[in-house]
């Protein structure tokens, strides 16, 4: 009697367990970012009045739409925690360049900026985000802008 009840409980829980495992696998595959830190350094010796930032290493982004459930996807970049970042290096001096279906953009304080969009068509899209900064530095130092990629699915 007890064994039968356990078996029935197990059969009831099984679909939920499979579903949970499925979601876990999807989450890991949808958006892959291989770099957690990108460094920007100024080209100081170039010439007077030149922009103070140079290009940098890149962030490689990979989106596997096979594991997405929806009609379309959108990728955003936003200051992490929407904190506005460090006032010495405002987010709007940072921009990125990338190829389609991703789009070039410039960071904005306290809001997300579109970084790419496309159809959920079973394709894998991947590219390198190259970051730049242009503007007048007000002081020497090391400034960290915490950011995040946000993948959104439109139903």
């Amino acid at each position, binding site marked *: 009697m007890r064994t039968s009840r356990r078996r029935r409980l197990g059969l009831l829980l099984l679909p939920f367990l499979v579903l949970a495992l499925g979601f876990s696998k999807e989450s890991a595959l*949808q958006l892959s*970012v291989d770099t*957690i830190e990108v460094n920007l350094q100024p080209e100081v010796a170039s010439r007077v009045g030149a922009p103070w930032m140079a290009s940098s290493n890149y962030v490689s982004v990979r989106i596997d739409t096979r594991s997405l459930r929806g009609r379309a996807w959108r990728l955003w970049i936003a200051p992490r925690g929407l904190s506005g970042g460090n006032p010495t290096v405002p987010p709007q001096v940072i921009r990125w360049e990338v190829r389609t279906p991703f789009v070039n953009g410039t960071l904005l304080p306290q809001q997300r900026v579109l970084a790419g969009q496309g159809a959920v068509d079973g394709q894998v899209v991947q590219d390198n985000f190259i970051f730049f900064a242009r503007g007048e530095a007000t002081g*020497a130092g*090391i400034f960290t802008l915490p950011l995040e990629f*946000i*993948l*959104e699915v439109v*139903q």
Partner: protein
Amino acid sequence: MLIVWPALAPAQDVAIRPFNVVVKVHPYLYLEIGTPGAIVDQISFRVAGLPGTGPVRGESTGKYPVPVVGDGMLAAAGTVNLIADGSQPLTDGMGHQIPFSQISWQGSGDVPSGQYSGSPQQIILQRSAHKGRMKLNGAMAFFYNNTQFFPAGIYSGRVIYTLSAP
């Protein structure tokens, strides 16, 4: 009356990946006197009058008056110095010399007027600066004072400028 609202497609965040952009701004100093780059401008004086007949204005192979441009990102507040080394006199290759103290300049912008002292560490310009961005902009028009007799000939020499900051 029936009002039909268009259905808004709901969107949902499905993945978030954090990363950091690190901006490294290092302290630096940049000095440009005359033509930018590796070119060394030459100032020449055509001395036709006798000593005491007045200073002779120079001519440059580059822009004239000679631009003086400084740029820097200072790690700390302190004193910025523009130093000239005119300790090696002008020579004609025949053993004759003219000291750099025979040459003066009329400054403009951030650069004050003055005269070379012949010192290897002559302060041409001094100012206090805040931590952070520092800029200098000025120009120098040079004159041969023409106050002493020297044997006729072509004399040449070089002044080296150094910009220093904390």
